[in-house]
Protein backbone atom coordinates (compact mmCIF):
# COMPACT_ATOMS: atom_id res chain seq x y z
CA UNK A 1 0.00 0.00 0.00
CA UNK A 2 2.76 2.45 0.98
CA UNK A 3 4.66 1.76 -2.24
CA UNK A 4 1.57 2.32 -4.38
CA UNK A 5 0.93 5.60 -2.57
CA UNK A 6 4.53 6.75 -3.04
CA UNK A 7 4.52 6.06 -6.77
CA UNK A 8 1.06 7.53 -7.22
CA UNK A 9 2.20 10.68 -5.43
CA UNK A 10 5.34 11.03 -7.55
CA UNK A 11 3.40 10.47 -10.76
CA UNK A 12 0.73 12.88 -9.61
CA UNK A 13 3.37 15.56 -8.99
CA UNK A 14 4.83 15.04 -12.48
CA UNK A 15 1.38 15.35 -14.07
CA UNK A 16 0.42 18.29 -11.88
CA UNK A 17 3.54 20.28 -12.73
CA UNK A 18 3.09 19.48 -16.42
CA UNK A 19 -0.47 20.74 -16.25
CA UNK A 20 0.69 23.89 -14.49
CA UNK A 21 3.20 24.56 -17.25
CA UNK A 22 0.18 24.92 -19.55
CA UNK A 23 -2.23 26.48 -17.05
CA UNK A 24 0.27 29.20 -16.09
CA UNK A 25 0.34 30.44 -19.70
CA UNK A 26 -3.46 30.40 -20.02
CA UNK A 27 -3.80 32.26 -16.71
CA UNK A 28 -1.17 34.87 -17.56
CA UNK A 29 -2.67 35.56 -20.98
CA UNK A 30 -6.17 35.73 -19.52
CA UNK A 31 -5.28 38.21 -16.80
CA UNK A 32 -3.42 40.51 -19.21
CA UNK A 33 -5.53 40.43 -22.33
CA UNK A 34 -8.83 39.07 -21.04
CA UNK A 35 -8.70 36.27 -23.61
CA UNK A 36 -9.25 32.65 -22.69
CA UNK A 37 -6.83 31.08 -25.16
CA UNK A 38 -8.46 27.83 -26.26
CA UNK A 39 -5.58 27.16 -28.63
CA UNK A 40 -3.03 27.01 -25.81
CA UNK A 41 -2.92 23.22 -25.70
CA UNK A 42 -2.41 23.22 -29.47
CA UNK A 43 0.95 24.89 -28.90
CA UNK A 44 1.70 22.07 -26.46
CA UNK A 45 1.01 19.62 -29.29
CA UNK A 46 3.13 21.63 -31.74
CA UNK A 47 6.00 21.52 -29.23
CA UNK A 48 5.87 17.72 -29.19
CA UNK A 49 5.69 17.41 -32.99
CA UNK A 50 8.43 19.97 -33.59
CA UNK A 51 10.65 18.16 -31.10
CA UNK A 52 9.90 14.80 -32.72
CA UNK A 53 10.88 16.03 -36.18
CA UNK A 54 13.87 18.04 -35.00
CA UNK A 55 15.18 15.15 -32.91
CA UNK A 56 15.34 12.94 -36.01
CA UNK A 57 17.85 15.32 -37.56
CA UNK A 58 19.59 16.93 -34.63
CA UNK A 59 19.09 14.50 -31.79
CA UNK A 60 16.86 14.96 -28.77
CA UNK A 61 18.76 17.50 -26.69
CA UNK A 62 19.00 20.28 -29.31
CA UNK A 63 15.30 19.61 -30.02
CA UNK A 64 14.49 20.09 -26.33
CA UNK A 65 15.79 23.65 -26.66
CA UNK A 66 14.74 24.49 -30.23
CA UNK A 67 11.17 23.14 -30.27
CA UNK A 68 9.91 25.40 -27.43
CA UNK A 69 11.70 28.40 -29.00
CA UNK A 70 10.06 27.69 -32.34
CA UNK A 71 6.67 27.28 -30.65
CA UNK A 72 7.16 30.54 -28.76
CA UNK A 73 8.07 32.47 -31.93
CA UNK A 74 4.98 31.04 -33.62
CA UNK A 75 2.89 32.05 -30.59
CA UNK A 76 4.28 35.60 -30.68
CA UNK A 77 3.45 35.82 -34.41
CA UNK A 78 -0.09 34.59 -33.76
CA UNK A 79 -0.51 37.33 -31.15
CA UNK A 80 1.01 40.04 -33.33
CA UNK A 81 -0.75 39.27 -36.61
CA UNK A 82 -3.82 37.40 -35.39
CA UNK A 83 -5.12 38.15 -31.95
CA UNK A 84 -4.13 41.82 -31.96
CA UNK A 85 -6.13 42.43 -35.14
CA UNK A 86 -9.12 40.46 -33.88
CA UNK A 87 -8.98 42.29 -30.52
CA UNK A 88 -10.62 45.36 -32.10
CA UNK A 89 -13.76 43.35 -32.70
CA UNK A 90 -14.27 42.40 -29.07
CA UNK A 91 -13.96 39.51 -26.67
CA UNK A 92 -16.29 37.11 -28.48
CA UNK A 93 -14.35 37.46 -31.72
CA UNK A 94 -11.13 36.72 -29.83
CA UNK A 95 -12.60 33.64 -28.20
CA UNK A 96 -13.86 32.31 -31.53
CA UNK A 97 -10.47 33.10 -33.06
CA UNK A 98 -8.64 30.93 -30.52
CA UNK A 99 -11.19 28.13 -31.08
CA UNK A 100 -10.64 28.29 -34.82
CA UNK A 101 -6.90 28.34 -34.30
CA UNK A 102 -7.08 25.16 -32.20
CA UNK A 103 -8.93 23.32 -34.97
CA UNK A 104 -6.62 24.72 -37.63
CA UNK A 105 -3.51 23.53 -35.79
CA UNK A 106 -5.02 20.09 -35.28
CA UNK A 107 -5.80 19.76 -38.99
CA UNK A 108 -2.37 21.06 -39.98
CA UNK A 109 -0.68 18.56 -37.69
CA UNK A 110 -2.63 15.75 -39.34
CA UNK A 111 -1.78 17.12 -42.77
CA UNK A 112 1.95 17.18 -42.09
CA UNK A 113 2.44 14.22 -39.77
CA UNK A 114 -0.66 12.07 -40.35
CA UNK A 115 -3.12 10.62 -37.90
CA UNK A 116 -0.96 7.89 -36.41
CA UNK A 117 0.88 8.23 -33.13
CA UNK A 118 4.50 9.20 -33.79
CA UNK A 119 7.36 7.09 -32.54
CA UNK A 120 8.69 9.83 -30.27
CA UNK A 121 10.73 8.18 -27.56
CA UNK A 122 12.48 9.05 -24.38
CA UNK A 123 16.17 9.73 -25.21
CA UNK A 124 18.43 6.74 -24.54
CA UNK A 125 20.42 8.74 -22.00
CA UNK A 126 17.45 8.85 -19.64
CA UNK A 127 15.72 5.63 -20.64
CA UNK A 128 16.42 3.65 -17.48
CA UNK A 129 14.70 3.12 -14.15
CA UNK A 130 16.00 5.68 -11.66
CA UNK A 131 15.21 3.48 -8.70
CA UNK A 132 13.28 0.33 -8.01
CA UNK A 133 11.23 0.16 -4.85
CA UNK A 134 8.99 -2.72 -3.78
CA UNK A 135 9.55 -4.26 -7.23
CA UNK A 136 8.30 -1.17 -9.07
CA UNK A 137 10.41 1.06 -11.36
CA UNK A 138 10.46 4.84 -11.33
CA UNK A 139 11.71 5.98 -14.75
CA UNK A 140 14.58 8.48 -14.83
CA UNK A 141 12.62 10.42 -17.47
CA UNK A 142 9.86 11.24 -15.01
CA UNK A 143 12.39 12.49 -12.51
CA UNK A 144 13.82 14.66 -15.30
CA UNK A 145 10.34 16.03 -16.06
CA UNK A 146 9.88 16.83 -12.39
CA UNK A 147 13.21 18.62 -12.02
CA UNK A 148 12.92 20.49 -15.31
CA UNK A 149 9.47 21.85 -14.47
CA UNK A 150 10.58 22.90 -11.00
CA UNK A 151 13.64 24.60 -12.51
CA UNK A 152 11.51 26.44 -15.07
CA UNK A 153 9.11 27.68 -12.41
CA UNK A 154 11.96 28.85 -10.19
CA UNK A 155 13.39 30.73 -13.18
CA UNK A 156 10.02 32.25 -14.07
CA UNK A 157 9.44 33.35 -10.49
CA UNK A 158 12.84 35.02 -10.35
CA UNK A 159 12.23 36.63 -13.72
CA UNK A 160 8.87 38.02 -12.65
CA UNK A 161 10.02 39.37 -9.30
CA UNK A 162 13.59 40.46 -10.00
CA UNK A 163 13.89 41.78 -13.54
CA UNK A 164 12.71 44.97 -15.25
CA UNK A 165 10.56 43.02 -17.66
CA UNK A 166 9.00 41.11 -14.77
CA UNK A 167 8.12 44.33 -12.95
CA UNK A 168 6.52 45.85 -16.03
CA UNK A 169 4.68 42.62 -16.79
CA UNK A 170 3.28 42.34 -13.26
CA UNK A 171 2.13 45.93 -13.51
CA UNK A 172 0.59 45.37 -16.96
CA UNK A 173 -1.35 42.32 -15.74
CA UNK A 174 -3.74 44.51 -13.77
CA UNK A 175 -3.42 47.94 -15.41
CA UNK A 176 -2.10 47.88 -18.97
CA UNK A 177 -3.29 51.41 -19.70
CA UNK A 178 -1.35 52.92 -16.79
CA UNK A 179 1.75 51.08 -17.97
CA UNK A 180 1.30 52.59 -21.44
CA UNK A 181 0.94 56.04 -19.91
CA UNK A 182 4.28 55.52 -18.19
CA UNK A 183 5.93 55.15 -21.59
CA UNK A 184 6.07 51.36 -21.95
CA UNK A 185 5.10 49.68 -25.19
CA UNK A 186 2.28 47.48 -23.92
CA UNK A 187 1.46 45.66 -27.17
CA UNK A 188 5.10 44.55 -27.35
CA UNK A 189 5.01 43.37 -23.73
CA UNK A 190 1.85 41.37 -24.50
CA UNK A 191 3.44 39.82 -27.56
CA UNK A 192 6.48 38.74 -25.55
CA UNK A 193 4.31 37.34 -22.76
CA UNK A 194 2.25 35.41 -25.29
CA UNK A 195 5.48 34.09 -26.79
CA UNK A 196 6.81 33.00 -23.39
CA UNK A 197 3.46 31.37 -22.51
CA UNK A 198 3.31 29.38 -25.74
CA UNK A 199 7.01 28.47 -25.46
CA UNK A 200 6.25 26.98 -22.03
CA UNK A 201 3.36 25.02 -23.56
CA UNK A 202 5.77 23.84 -26.26
CA UNK A 203 8.28 22.72 -23.64
CA UNK A 204 5.53 20.80 -21.85
CA UNK A 205 4.81 19.08 -25.17
CA UNK A 206 8.44 18.12 -25.67
CA UNK A 207 8.76 16.46 -22.29
CA UNK A 208 5.28 14.90 -22.29
CA UNK A 209 5.28 13.71 -25.91
CA UNK A 210 7.43 10.63 -25.28
CA UNK A 211 5.33 9.43 -22.31
CA UNK A 212 1.78 10.56 -23.06
CA UNK A 213 2.02 9.96 -26.82
CA UNK A 214 2.58 12.29 -29.76
CA UNK A 215 -0.71 12.14 -31.67
CA UNK A 216 -3.23 14.61 -33.13
CA UNK A 217 -5.60 14.21 -30.19
CA UNK A 218 -3.02 15.12 -27.56
CA UNK A 219 -4.05 18.79 -27.49
CA UNK A 220 -7.70 18.04 -26.87
CA UNK A 221 -6.96 15.36 -24.28
CA UNK A 222 -4.89 17.69 -22.10
CA UNK A 223 -6.54 20.97 -23.09
CA UNK A 224 -9.81 20.23 -21.34
CA UNK A 225 -7.94 19.43 -18.13
CA UNK A 226 -6.05 22.70 -18.38
CA UNK A 227 -9.32 24.62 -18.47
CA UNK A 228 -10.66 22.71 -15.51
CA UNK A 229 -7.54 23.81 -13.62
CA UNK A 230 -7.75 27.43 -14.68
CA UNK A 231 -11.39 27.62 -13.59
CA UNK A 232 -10.92 25.69 -10.33
CA UNK A 233 -7.90 27.80 -9.47
CA UNK A 234 -9.84 31.00 -10.10
CA UNK A 235 -9.50 32.75 -13.46
CA UNK A 236 -6.43 34.92 -13.52
CA UNK A 237 -4.74 33.60 -10.37
CA UNK A 238 -1.34 31.96 -10.84
CA UNK A 239 -1.26 30.65 -7.28
CA UNK A 240 -4.74 29.23 -7.66
CA UNK A 241 -3.77 27.53 -10.92
CA UNK A 242 -0.69 26.04 -9.25
CA UNK A 243 -2.70 24.55 -6.37
CA UNK A 244 -5.43 23.30 -8.73
CA UNK A 245 -2.90 21.72 -11.11
CA UNK A 246 -1.24 19.76 -8.30
CA UNK A 247 -4.64 18.84 -6.88
CA UNK A 248 -5.90 17.45 -10.19
CA UNK A 249 -2.61 15.67 -10.91
CA UNK A 250 -2.52 13.99 -7.50
CA UNK A 251 -6.23 13.22 -7.40
CA UNK A 252 -6.17 11.44 -10.73
CA UNK A 253 -2.99 9.61 -9.97
CA UNK A 254 -4.20 8.43 -6.56
CA UNK A 255 -7.55 7.37 -7.98
CA UNK A 256 -5.90 5.32 -10.70
CA UNK A 257 -3.55 3.64 -8.24
CA UNK A 258 -6.24 2.74 -5.74
CA UNK A 259 -8.15 -0.49 -5.88
CA UNK A 260 -11.25 0.76 -4.10
CA UNK A 261 -14.48 -0.05 -5.89
CA UNK A 262 -18.17 0.46 -5.49
CA UNK A 263 -18.42 -3.09 -4.18
CA UNK A 264 -16.11 -2.25 -1.27
CA UNK A 265 -18.17 0.78 -0.35
CA UNK A 266 -21.35 -1.29 -0.51
CA UNK A 267 -19.77 -4.06 1.52
CA UNK A 268 -18.86 -1.50 4.19
CA UNK A 269 -22.51 -0.51 4.30
CA UNK A 270 -23.50 -4.18 4.52
CA UNK A 271 -25.24 -4.18 1.16
CA UNK A 272 -24.65 -6.83 -1.47
CA UNK A 273 -26.18 -7.63 -4.80
CA UNK A 274 -26.58 -10.91 -6.61
CA UNK A 275 -24.01 -11.34 -9.42
CA UNK A 276 -26.74 -11.42 -12.07
CA UNK A 277 -28.42 -8.16 -11.00
CA UNK A 278 -29.36 -6.02 -14.07
CA UNK A 279 -27.39 -3.04 -12.75
CA UNK A 280 -24.36 -5.13 -11.84
CA UNK A 281 -21.97 -3.05 -13.99
CA UNK A 282 -22.74 -0.03 -11.85
CA UNK A 283 -21.99 -1.90 -8.59
CA UNK A 284 -18.69 -3.08 -9.99
CA UNK A 285 -17.35 0.37 -10.89
CA UNK A 286 -13.93 0.98 -9.40
CA UNK A 287 -12.18 4.21 -8.56
CA UNK A 288 -9.56 3.77 -11.32
CA UNK A 289 -12.43 3.53 -13.80
CA UNK A 290 -13.97 6.82 -12.72
CA UNK A 291 -10.62 8.62 -12.32
CA UNK A 292 -10.95 10.52 -15.63
CA UNK A 293 -14.32 11.85 -14.45
CA UNK A 294 -13.00 13.34 -11.23
CA UNK A 295 -11.62 16.65 -12.59
CA UNK A 296 -14.93 17.43 -14.27
CA UNK A 297 -16.92 16.48 -11.17
CA UNK A 298 -14.68 18.84 -9.24
CA UNK A 299 -15.24 21.56 -11.87
CA UNK A 300 -19.01 21.29 -11.66
CA UNK A 301 -18.96 21.25 -7.86
CA UNK A 302 -16.62 24.22 -7.79
CA UNK A 303 -18.83 26.25 -10.11
CA UNK A 304 -21.87 25.43 -7.98
CA UNK A 305 -20.30 26.07 -4.58
CA UNK A 306 -17.56 28.63 -5.18
CA UNK A 307 -17.90 30.03 -8.70
CA UNK A 308 -14.92 32.35 -8.36
CA UNK A 309 -12.54 29.42 -7.89
CA UNK A 310 -10.01 28.62 -5.16
CA UNK A 311 -8.19 31.95 -5.28
CA UNK A 312 -11.03 33.72 -6.95
CA UNK A 313 -11.63 36.78 -4.82
CA UNK A 314 -10.18 38.91 -7.57
CA UNK A 315 -8.78 42.14 -6.27
CA UNK A 316 -9.44 45.40 -8.10
Amino acid at each position, binding site marked *: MADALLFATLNGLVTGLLLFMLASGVTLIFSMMGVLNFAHASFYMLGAYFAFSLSQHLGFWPALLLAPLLTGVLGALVERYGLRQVHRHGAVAELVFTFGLAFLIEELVQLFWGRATQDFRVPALLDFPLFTLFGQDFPAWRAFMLLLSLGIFAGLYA*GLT*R*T*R*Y*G*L*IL*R*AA*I*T*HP*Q*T*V*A*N*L*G*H*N*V*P*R*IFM*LAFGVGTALAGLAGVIAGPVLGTWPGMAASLGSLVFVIVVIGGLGSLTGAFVAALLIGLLQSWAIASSVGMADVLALLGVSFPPDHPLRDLWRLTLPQVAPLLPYVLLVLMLLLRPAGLAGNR*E*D
Partner: protein
Amino acid sequence: MSLLRLEQVSKQFGRTRVLHAVDLAIEPGECHAIIGPNGAGKSTLFHLISGLLRPDSGQIAFEGKPIHGLPSEQIARRGIARSFQISQLFTRLSVFENLRCALLWPMGYGCSLRHLLGREKALNARADALLDELGLQALRDVPAGELAYAAQRALELGLAIAGDARLILLDEPVAGMSHSEAAQALALIRRVTAERTLLLVEHDMSVVFELADRITVLARGEVIATDTPARIRTNARVQEVYLGTGAGGQSDA
Protein backbone atom coordinates in the same frame (compact mmCIF):
# COMPACT_ATOMS: atom_id res chain seq x y z
CA MET B 1 4.91 79.02 -28.35
CA SER B 2 2.26 77.21 -26.36
CA LEU B 3 3.35 73.97 -24.73
CA LEU B 4 0.13 72.25 -25.78
CA ARG B 5 -2.26 73.46 -28.42
CA LEU B 6 -5.60 71.98 -29.43
CA GLU B 7 -7.20 73.25 -32.61
CA GLN B 8 -10.78 72.47 -33.62
CA VAL B 9 -10.71 69.11 -31.83
CA SER B 10 -13.94 67.11 -32.11
CA LYS B 11 -14.96 63.71 -30.80
CA GLN B 12 -18.19 61.74 -31.16
CA PHE B 13 -19.27 58.45 -29.63
CA GLY B 14 -21.76 57.00 -32.06
CA ARG B 15 -24.15 59.89 -32.61
CA THR B 16 -23.36 61.61 -29.34
CA ARG B 17 -21.26 64.70 -29.78
CA VAL B 18 -18.87 64.82 -26.83
CA LEU B 19 -16.43 67.51 -27.90
CA HIS B 20 -17.01 70.03 -30.65
CA ALA B 21 -14.34 72.25 -32.24
CA VAL B 22 -12.37 72.72 -29.04
CA ASP B 23 -9.52 75.23 -29.10
CA LEU B 24 -7.17 75.29 -26.16
CA ALA B 25 -3.66 76.58 -25.57
CA ILE B 26 -1.63 75.70 -22.49
CA GLU B 27 1.33 77.97 -21.84
CA PRO B 28 4.61 76.72 -20.34
CA GLY B 29 4.71 76.92 -16.55
CA GLU B 30 1.04 77.70 -15.96
CA CYS B 31 -1.51 75.77 -13.96
CA HIS B 32 -4.57 75.49 -16.15
CA ALA B 33 -7.86 74.12 -14.82
CA ILE B 34 -10.72 72.75 -16.87
CA ILE B 35 -14.12 73.03 -15.26
CA GLY B 36 -17.63 72.36 -16.42
CA PRO B 37 -20.83 70.54 -15.48
CA ASN B 38 -20.99 66.74 -15.59
CA GLY B 39 -20.88 65.42 -19.12
CA ALA B 40 -19.15 68.51 -20.45
CA GLY B 41 -16.43 66.34 -22.00
CA LYS B 42 -13.60 67.03 -19.54
CA SER B 43 -12.44 63.43 -19.17
CA THR B 44 -12.74 62.82 -22.90
CA LEU B 45 -10.49 65.80 -23.45
CA PHE B 46 -7.85 64.20 -21.20
CA HIS B 47 -8.20 60.88 -23.01
CA LEU B 48 -7.62 62.61 -26.34
CA ILE B 49 -4.52 64.44 -25.11
CA SER B 50 -3.02 61.31 -23.51
CA GLY B 51 -3.74 59.09 -26.52
CA LEU B 52 -6.32 56.80 -24.94
CA LEU B 53 -8.76 58.06 -27.58
CA ARG B 54 -8.20 59.60 -31.00
CA PRO B 55 -9.92 62.78 -32.11
CA ASP B 56 -12.33 62.48 -35.05
CA SER B 57 -10.99 65.73 -36.41
CA GLY B 58 -8.72 68.58 -35.38
CA GLN B 59 -5.09 68.91 -34.29
CA ILE B 60 -3.29 68.39 -31.01
CA ALA B 61 0.30 69.62 -30.88
CA PHE B 62 2.79 69.32 -28.04
CA GLU B 63 5.87 71.55 -28.20
CA GLY B 64 4.88 72.35 -31.75
CA LYS B 65 4.70 68.77 -32.98
CA PRO B 66 1.44 66.92 -33.69
CA ILE B 67 0.63 64.11 -31.23
CA HIS B 68 -2.95 63.17 -32.13
CA GLY B 69 -3.14 59.60 -33.35
CA LEU B 70 0.02 58.51 -31.52
CA PRO B 71 -0.26 55.56 -29.09
CA SER B 72 -0.25 56.38 -25.36
CA GLU B 73 3.32 55.27 -24.76
CA GLN B 74 4.66 57.55 -27.51
CA ILE B 75 2.83 60.52 -26.04
CA ALA B 76 4.14 59.64 -22.57
CA ARG B 77 7.68 59.45 -23.95
CA ARG B 78 7.37 62.96 -25.39
CA GLY B 79 6.74 64.38 -21.94
CA ILE B 80 3.04 64.22 -21.05
CA ALA B 81 2.10 62.33 -17.89
CA ARG B 82 -1.38 61.81 -16.52
CA SER B 83 -3.31 60.54 -13.54
CA PHE B 84 -6.71 58.93 -13.78
CA GLN B 85 -9.99 59.67 -12.13
CA ILE B 86 -10.46 56.06 -11.13
CA SER B 87 -7.52 54.54 -9.29
CA GLN B 88 -5.12 53.05 -11.79
CA LEU B 89 -2.39 52.00 -9.41
CA PHE B 90 -0.74 48.59 -9.66
CA THR B 91 -2.69 47.29 -6.70
CA ARG B 92 -0.69 44.12 -6.12
CA LEU B 93 2.71 45.80 -6.27
CA SER B 94 4.23 47.64 -3.32
CA VAL B 95 4.41 51.43 -3.23
CA PHE B 96 8.12 51.22 -4.00
CA GLU B 97 7.56 48.91 -6.97
CA ASN B 98 4.86 51.20 -8.33
CA LEU B 99 7.32 54.07 -8.38
CA ARG B 100 10.11 51.95 -9.85
CA CYS B 101 7.76 50.97 -12.64
CA ALA B 102 7.01 54.62 -13.35
CA LEU B 103 10.70 55.52 -13.34
CA LEU B 104 11.96 52.79 -15.69
CA TRP B 105 11.25 54.44 -18.99
CA PRO B 106 12.02 58.08 -18.06
CA MET B 107 15.37 56.99 -16.62
CA GLY B 108 16.25 55.20 -19.82
CA TYR B 109 15.74 51.64 -18.67
CA GLY B 110 13.90 49.62 -21.27
CA CYS B 111 12.19 46.31 -20.89
CA SER B 112 14.81 43.72 -20.11
CA LEU B 113 15.01 40.21 -18.75
CA ARG B 114 18.75 40.37 -18.16
CA HIS B 115 18.87 43.26 -15.76
CA LEU B 116 18.22 42.63 -12.11
CA LEU B 117 16.23 45.39 -10.45
CA GLY B 118 18.15 45.02 -7.21
CA ARG B 119 21.32 46.21 -8.96
CA GLU B 120 19.89 49.36 -10.54
CA LYS B 121 21.24 51.72 -7.88
CA ALA B 122 20.27 54.97 -9.59
CA LEU B 123 16.72 53.71 -10.14
CA ASN B 124 16.27 52.61 -6.55
CA ALA B 125 17.79 55.81 -5.17
CA ARG B 126 15.43 57.94 -7.28
CA ALA B 127 12.43 55.83 -6.19
CA ASP B 128 13.42 56.31 -2.56
CA ALA B 129 13.81 60.05 -3.07
CA LEU B 130 10.31 60.14 -4.57
CA LEU B 131 8.96 58.25 -1.55
CA ASP B 132 10.35 60.98 0.70
CA GLU B 133 8.96 63.71 -1.51
CA LEU B 134 5.50 62.17 -1.40
CA GLY B 135 5.67 61.41 2.32
CA LEU B 136 5.17 57.70 1.66
CA GLN B 137 8.48 56.41 3.03
CA ALA B 138 6.74 54.62 5.93
CA LEU B 139 4.47 52.78 3.48
CA ARG B 140 7.30 51.74 1.15
CA ASP B 141 6.55 48.00 1.09
CA VAL B 142 2.77 48.08 1.45
CA PRO B 143 0.83 46.83 -1.60
CA ALA B 144 -0.79 49.82 -3.30
CA GLY B 145 -4.19 48.15 -3.08
CA GLU B 146 -4.04 48.28 0.74
CA LEU B 147 -3.28 51.99 1.06
CA ALA B 148 -5.73 54.44 2.57
CA TYR B 149 -7.48 56.65 0.03
CA ALA B 150 -5.38 59.77 0.48
CA ALA B 151 -2.14 57.79 0.28
CA GLN B 152 -3.36 56.15 -2.93
CA ARG B 153 -3.97 59.53 -4.49
CA ALA B 154 -0.52 60.70 -3.34
CA LEU B 155 1.03 57.65 -4.99
CA GLU B 156 -0.93 58.34 -8.16
CA LEU B 157 0.48 61.82 -8.20
CA GLY B 158 3.88 60.21 -7.68
CA LEU B 159 3.43 58.03 -10.78
CA ALA B 160 2.51 61.09 -12.80
CA ILE B 161 5.48 63.18 -11.69
CA ALA B 162 8.03 60.34 -11.58
CA GLY B 163 9.30 61.03 -15.05
CA ASP B 164 10.41 64.44 -16.13
CA ALA B 165 7.16 65.13 -17.92
CA ARG B 166 6.87 68.79 -18.92
CA LEU B 167 3.09 68.59 -18.87
CA ILE B 168 1.15 66.82 -16.14
CA LEU B 169 -2.56 66.08 -16.46
CA LEU B 170 -4.38 65.52 -13.18
CA ASP B 171 -7.93 64.20 -13.29
CA GLU B 172 -9.76 65.27 -10.13
CA PRO B 173 -6.74 64.95 -7.83
CA VAL B 174 -8.64 65.68 -4.60
CA ALA B 175 -11.99 64.05 -5.38
CA GLY B 176 -13.38 62.12 -2.43
CA MET B 177 -10.95 63.60 0.08
CA SER B 178 -11.86 65.19 3.38
CA HIS B 179 -11.18 68.89 3.81
CA SER B 180 -7.88 68.41 5.62
CA GLU B 181 -6.75 65.66 3.26
CA ALA B 182 -7.50 67.89 0.29
CA ALA B 183 -5.49 70.72 1.84
CA GLN B 184 -2.51 68.39 2.29
CA ALA B 185 -2.89 67.04 -1.23
CA LEU B 186 -2.93 70.57 -2.62
CA ALA B 187 0.25 71.46 -0.77
CA LEU B 188 1.83 68.30 -2.15
CA ILE B 189 0.72 69.05 -5.72
CA ARG B 190 2.10 72.56 -5.45
CA ARG B 191 5.42 71.35 -4.11
CA VAL B 192 6.07 68.57 -6.59
CA THR B 193 4.82 70.38 -9.67
CA ALA B 194 6.44 73.73 -8.95
CA GLU B 195 8.62 73.71 -12.05
CA ARG B 196 6.14 72.13 -14.41
CA THR B 197 3.05 72.82 -16.42
CA LEU B 198 -0.14 71.49 -14.95
CA LEU B 199 -3.49 70.82 -16.58
CA LEU B 200 -6.19 69.66 -14.22
CA VAL B 201 -9.82 68.72 -14.21
CA GLU B 202 -11.50 69.37 -10.89
CA HIS B 203 -15.01 69.69 -9.53
CA ASP B 204 -14.08 71.39 -6.28
CA MET B 205 -14.17 75.09 -7.09
CA SER B 206 -12.20 76.15 -4.05
CA VAL B 207 -9.34 73.96 -5.29
CA VAL B 208 -9.60 75.32 -8.79
CA PHE B 209 -9.55 78.95 -7.73
CA GLU B 210 -6.68 78.38 -5.33
CA LEU B 211 -4.45 76.49 -7.73
CA ALA B 212 -5.19 77.70 -11.26
CA ASP B 213 -3.55 80.54 -13.13
CA ARG B 214 -6.11 80.23 -15.90
CA ILE B 215 -9.41 78.42 -16.20
CA THR B 216 -11.21 76.99 -19.21
CA VAL B 217 -14.94 76.34 -18.91
CA LEU B 218 -16.40 73.50 -20.96
CA ALA B 219 -20.12 72.90 -21.43
CA ARG B 220 -21.76 70.35 -23.70
CA GLY B 221 -18.48 69.74 -25.48
CA GLU B 222 -17.69 73.36 -26.28
CA VAL B 223 -15.30 75.88 -24.78
CA ILE B 224 -17.28 78.74 -23.31
CA ALA B 225 -14.47 80.78 -21.85
CA THR B 226 -10.77 80.71 -21.06
CA ASP B 227 -9.59 83.36 -18.63
CA THR B 228 -8.05 84.20 -15.28
CA PRO B 229 -9.95 82.98 -12.18
CA ALA B 230 -11.08 86.50 -11.27
CA ARG B 231 -12.61 87.14 -14.68
CA ILE B 232 -14.15 83.67 -14.90
CA ARG B 233 -15.95 84.37 -11.60
CA THR B 234 -17.71 87.34 -13.14
CA ASN B 235 -18.23 85.90 -16.62
CA ALA B 236 -21.95 86.03 -17.45
CA ARG B 237 -21.97 82.99 -19.76
CA VAL B 238 -20.19 80.85 -17.20
CA GLN B 239 -22.71 81.75 -14.53
CA GLU B 240 -25.51 80.99 -16.92
CA VAL B 241 -24.11 77.53 -17.72
CA TYR B 242 -23.63 76.61 -14.09
CA LEU B 243 -26.97 77.90 -12.92
CA GLY B 244 -28.78 76.80 -16.05
CA THR B 245 -27.85 73.11 -15.71
CA GLY B 246 -28.54 73.04 -12.01
CA ALA B 247 -24.95 72.08 -11.31
CA GLY B 248 -24.37 75.35 -9.49
CA GLY B 249 -24.58 73.60 -6.13
CA GLN B 250 -21.13 72.13 -6.67
CA SER B 251 -19.55 75.49 -7.07
CA ASP B 252 -19.09 78.71 -5.31
CA ALA B 253 -18.25 80.38 -8.58
